[in-house]
Each structure stands twice: as C-alpha cells, then as structure tokens.
C-alpha cells in the first residue's frame, strides 16, 4: 500500500466492491478520471481499491447507478482523525492538557549545577540573588553572558565562570582564582640567650653571629645580631646550641604498694537490656580478699542488624596487695629518671640530656631525698625585637 503524504492528509478510503463481475464500475471510474490505487481482485470475483476522500461523490454515484454494494474497509488520514477526535473530546482535552503541562513545567528552572568550586554555597547565594534558583521562570532569567558578568562582578575569588542554560537546567562552571601567597612582613630582630649556658654550636640563617662556641653566656646576651656591620637591620634567624645546667630536688618513698593478679579468676555473663541487667551464666562467688573486675560489653548482632541487647562478660580476678621495699640502686635510678623528665619538661624542644650527677642523697623517714645535677644541650636562642631601628627593612 503506497501511502503518500498528500493522500494521507486528504484522507482516503479502502472500499470493497461486491456485485460487479464485469468491472463496469471500475471502468466507469477510470473514464471519469478518478485516481485509484491498490486495485486488487479477490478470489470471489469482487475487488477492492483505495480512493481519495475528495472522489467519494463519483464513487458513490457510480455504485448507485451500477447497483453495486460497497463495503468500506479502512478510513485513513487526517479528516478521519479529526472526526474521531471530535467524538472523543475528553481524550483530546487530555492531550491538550498534557501539552500545556509539559510547556508549563519546562518553563521553570529545575536544577542549578555548580561545578569546579569547593564553595558552591557562595556561588549559589549570588545566583539566588540573581533569581537563578530552582523554580524561577526561564523568561525571568538574564541571558548567559549577563549572568557570567554578574557572577564575576560579585565573586572576587573566581577567575572565570561559564553559565550554560540548557533546557530547564542551569550549569555553572567556575574556575577559582589561585591566590598569591601572602607576604609575611617581619620586623628586624636579634637572637638573645634565654638561659645561661656555654655555647657549643651556632648556626645563623640570617644575621651576624655575635658569640663563639665555648663562650659562656648569660640571659640577654646577643647571640645572633640583627644589626649588620653597615648599620642595616635584618630579621635574624638561626639556632644556638648550648650546654645548660639544671639542679633538681627529688624525694622518693622507699616502699611501694601494688596490686598483683594471682591468675585465679571467675567469669560472669550478663544480658543487658537497656538499664536492666540479667545474670545469665556463672554464679560463683569467689572468696577473694581483693578482687579486680574487668567487664566487656558487646552488642548482639543478627546479620547486620543490631539488637537493643548487650552481652556483658565480667571477669573477676583474684588480686593480692604487694608491698615491696626498693633497693638503693633502684631508688637512685628512679630519681635520675624523674629528674630527667622534670628537666626536659622545662627545657626547649629537642633538648638532649648529656650528663647527670647525684650531688646529694639522704635516706630519711622512709624517703630518699636527692639533689640531681643535669646537663642538657638545647637551643637557648630567643627572639628580641630591635626597638629603635634606624631604617626598618622588611623581608619576605
């Protein structure tokens, strides 16, 4: 069947002609110059053909004059569609409503996607001020170039922004501005001694070294000078290692008490439901004089589901109090260790203990009193601003 577009628009009918064995009607149609197509003879001597709807008058009048019966098989084309649509008004209405809904919904912004920035909230806030947010009518939006300019204007942290309005989506591509590193302005300073000591090593990154290794310095002595020989002042930097001495007084008790576990234990199992604790297993009451209890709770799981129940496993250990008297050597060792920790706490970072000496020791009323001397190597440098700088220069 050749359906040409023009025929489809005009509408056409397929008709089955009965009672015309001599094809008189067909011949009549041909002589009347009616356009026919798909003329097909059938087994029983009848035939059928298609004709355009505009020729229906000729076909009907010929059929009447030759007394042929017609059976209309197919009605195709726009006129019949219109006719059917008229009979189904609600259907048509639904179609129209659908089209209207589609048009209405596609005239809003549905999504705004911001890419390329770690602070999409800031961009979104500016876009919000420009009425670019889900729910805005597309007609109310500015065009893409204006949006780009407005964003660039209001966000100083972006180098470039691309706005693309595609359908109901707004895509915003942001390229953030790479900030130059901040300049650090430093006032000229010198490095002076913080504590007294003997300088062992000196490393000046900038500034003039003012002391030599082996020199004894007192607090406030300039170690690395920020004033250069030509009178210019700089930000002096460096490390000054020195031997520093500390004296600590320590008192350690001779006897020590501790709890030791004998290895004997009893375990109890509990089921914990909220605040209710039910003992489930292990009811022994051990005759321990001193006991140490360790309990572990773990949730009860079925697969990955966590039940509101807990299983508590309690272990009661037999503990025994131990009293021991420390020997002189052990007491001294502990005293030196305490002194070391004490000194390192007050010394600079990365200090190293070089030597330790026990200056005095005295056992009195169950306690060992010690006086410990500790030599530490540490950085004794301390920054001091050069107050009256003649020409303050800055350095990065």
């Amino acid at each position, binding site marked *: 069947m*050749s359906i040409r577009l023009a025929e489809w628009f005009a509408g056409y009918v397929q008709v089955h002609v009965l009672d015309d064995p001599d*094809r008189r009607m*067909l*011949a009549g*149609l*041909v*002589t009347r*110059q*009616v*356009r*026919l*197509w*798909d*003329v*097909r*003879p059938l087994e029983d001597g009848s*035939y059928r*053909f298609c004709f355009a709807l505009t020729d229906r008058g000729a076909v009907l009048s010929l059929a009447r004059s030759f007394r042929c019966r017609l059976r209309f098989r197919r009605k195709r084309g726009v006129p019949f569609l219109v006719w059917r649509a008229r009979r189904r008004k609600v259907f048509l209405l639904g179609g129209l409503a659908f089209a209207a809904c589609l048009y209405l919904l596609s005239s809003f912004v549905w999504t705004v996607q911001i890419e390329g920035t770690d602070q999409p909230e800031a961009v979104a806030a500016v876009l919000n001020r420009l009425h670019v947010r889900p729910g805005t009518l597309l007609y109310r939006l500015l065009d893409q170039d204006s949006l780009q300019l407005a964003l660039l204007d209001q966000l100083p942290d972006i180098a470039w922004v691309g706005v693309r309005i595609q359908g109901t989506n707004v895509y915003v591509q942001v390229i953030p501005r790479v900030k130059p590193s901040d300049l650090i302005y430093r006032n000229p300073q010198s490095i002076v001694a913080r504590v007294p000591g003997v300088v062992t090593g000196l490393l000046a990154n900038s500034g003039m070294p003012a002391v030599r290794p082996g020199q004894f310095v007192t607090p406030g002595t300039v170690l690395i000078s920020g004033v250069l020989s030509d009178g210019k002042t700089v930000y002096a930097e460096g490390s000054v290692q020195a031997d520093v001495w500390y004296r600590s007084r320590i008192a350690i008790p001779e006897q020590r008490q501790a709890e030791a576990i004998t290895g004997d234990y009893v375990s109890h199992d509990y089921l914990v439901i909220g605040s209710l604790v039910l003992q489930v297993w292990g009811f022994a009451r051990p005759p321990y004089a001193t006991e140490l209890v360790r309990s572990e709770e773990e949730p009860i799981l079925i697969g990955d589901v966590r039940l509101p129940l807990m299983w508590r496993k309690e272990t009661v250990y037999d503990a025994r109090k131990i009293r021991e008297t420390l020997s002189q050597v052990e007491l001294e060792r502990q005293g030196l260790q305490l002194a070391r920790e004490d000194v390192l706490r007050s010394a600079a970072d990365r200090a190293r203990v070089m030597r330790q000496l026990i200056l005095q020791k005295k056992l009195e009323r169950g306690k060992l009193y010690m006086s410990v001397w500790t030599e530490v190597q540490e950085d004794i440098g301390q920054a001091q601003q050069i107050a009256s700088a003649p020409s303050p220069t800055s350095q990065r």
Partner: protein
Amino acid sequence: MKRRLRDKTERLAASVLEVPADTLEHVARITVTGQSQVTIENYRVFVEFTDRLIRVAVAGGEVAIRGQGLVMRTIVPEEVVVTGTICGIDFA
C-alpha cells in the same frame, strides 16, 4: 475522420523529423521493470481485470498482461501501474 487525419499527419511528421515515437500523444508506452512491475501510459480503458490477467485498451489495440497476484497499484488518468509476478505481455 478528423482524428485519423491528425494521427496520420503526426506519424508522418514524426517519421520525417525523426522524433521518437513515445513523445507522441496517442501512442501507448509500456515500461517493464524487472518481473514485478509494468507501467502503461496513455491507456484508454480496462477490458478485463483478474489477478492472473489484465487487459487494457490502448491506442490502436489492446495490451494483455499475464501473471500471478496482479494488483493495479495506481490508476491515474495518464497511467496505470501494475505490480505482481509478470509472466508475459501480449499485444492484440
């Protein structure tokens, strides 16, 4: 009489001027495309029409198309297109 005279004159002119015969108005032109389609231009009327035989009156005689499952695809005032399995074309 008038018609005949005109035909004669046309034929004479065509033979003298060596005009191809198919450009003339009252000469049937039959185009066969493979075994499946026959186009007859300048036909007059159908004489017989079944799915095995189609006879068409043309200027100066009759054309019979034999075949199987013959269908007239298009009938317009100038031409008729017959499709189907063509077995032979006879002139009478």
